[in-house]
C-alpha cells in the first residue's frame, strides 16, 4: 500500500518562498495570482495492507518526524 503525505506551513505562518514564487509568476505575466503556498509531498511505500492501520501508522510518522506541528500541518492520503 502506498501513502502520500502533504505537508504545508500552517495558515498564519509566513511562507517567504511561496511569496517569492508569487512575485516571479507576476513578473512572467501571470496575473491574478493572489497567493502561493509552497509545501512538500512525501510518498511512502508500505508493507501494511490494512488501510486503517496504515493511516494510523503514517499519522504517527507525521507527528514524530515528517511534519513539525509547531509550524506545519499535514494530511495523509492512501493510494
Amino acid at each position, binding site marked *: 500500500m502506498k501513502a502520500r503525505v502533504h505537508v504545508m*506551513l500552517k495558515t498564519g*505562518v*509566513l511562507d*517567504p*518562498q511561496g511569496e*517569492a514564487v508569487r512575485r516571479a509568476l507576476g513578473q512572467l505575466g501571470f496575473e491574478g495570482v493572489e497567493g502561493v503556498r509552497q509545501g512538500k509531498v512525501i510518498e511512502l511505500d508500505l508493507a501494511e495492507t490494512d488501510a486503517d492501520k496504515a493511516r494510523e501508522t503514517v499519522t504517527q510518522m507525521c507527528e*514524530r*518526524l*515528517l511534519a*513539525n506541528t*509547531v*509550524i506545519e500541518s499535514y494530511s495523509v492520503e492512501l493510494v
Partner: protein
Amino acid sequence: MHAAILVFPGSNCDRDLKVAFERAGARVSMVWHKDTALPGGVDIVGVPGGFSYGDYLRCGAIAANSPICRAVVAHAERGGYVLGICNGFQILTETGLLPGALLRNAGLKYVCKPVDLRVTTADSAFTRGYAPGSTITVPIAHHDGNYFADGATLDRLEAEDRVAFTYVRNPNGSARDIAGVLSENRRVLGMMPHPERMAEPAQGGTDGAAMFAGLVRDLADA
C-alpha cells in the same frame, strides 16, 4: 568542567566550539551522533552549528531523532545544561527541549555577517558574564534563522524572562527580534548567532568569550 560536543555528519562548527570551551578552561569530549550515551560526568552538551544530515526534511529534524539526541534529552530532563548554536538551536527546537521553530529567513537569503545582539537577561549561566541590556557583536551564518512561535508562547517567553538575546537590527524576520531563548529551568539555551566565532582576538572580536568563561566558572562550582 566537562563539556561534550556532538558531531553529526554535516556539523561544521564542532571544532570551533571545542576550542572556545577549551580556552575557557573546560575539558571537552567529542561525541559521535551514533553513540547512545554521553560520557560520564558531563556538565554541558554543546550542539554545534552546521548542516546536520544535509538539512534533509527540515533543518535539525533528522539529528533530533538520532541516538545521541535521546541521551541529550535525558540529560536535559535530569537538569543538565545544553547549549545549541545555529543548527544546534534548530535541533533543540525539533527535540522539543525549546519552544518554537526556525523558518526560512524572511529575505530568503543566506545571511553571513556580524550582528549586534542585546543581552536581554543576565539570569542564566550562559549570560551571567554580560551586563543585562548590553550590546555584543557576534556573527550569524544561516538560511533558516527566522524564529517563530505562536503569540501565547512568545508572551510567555517574555513574561518568564526567557529571551536571552535579541537582534538590534532584525536580519531574518524573527518574531520579536528573538535571537536566543532559554528553557523553563534556564539550563538549555538555543541561539542562532555564533559566540564561538567571536571568542578570541584572532577572530576579530571577543564578545562571545564571556559566555564560555561564565559557563566554566558556574558549572565548575556546581
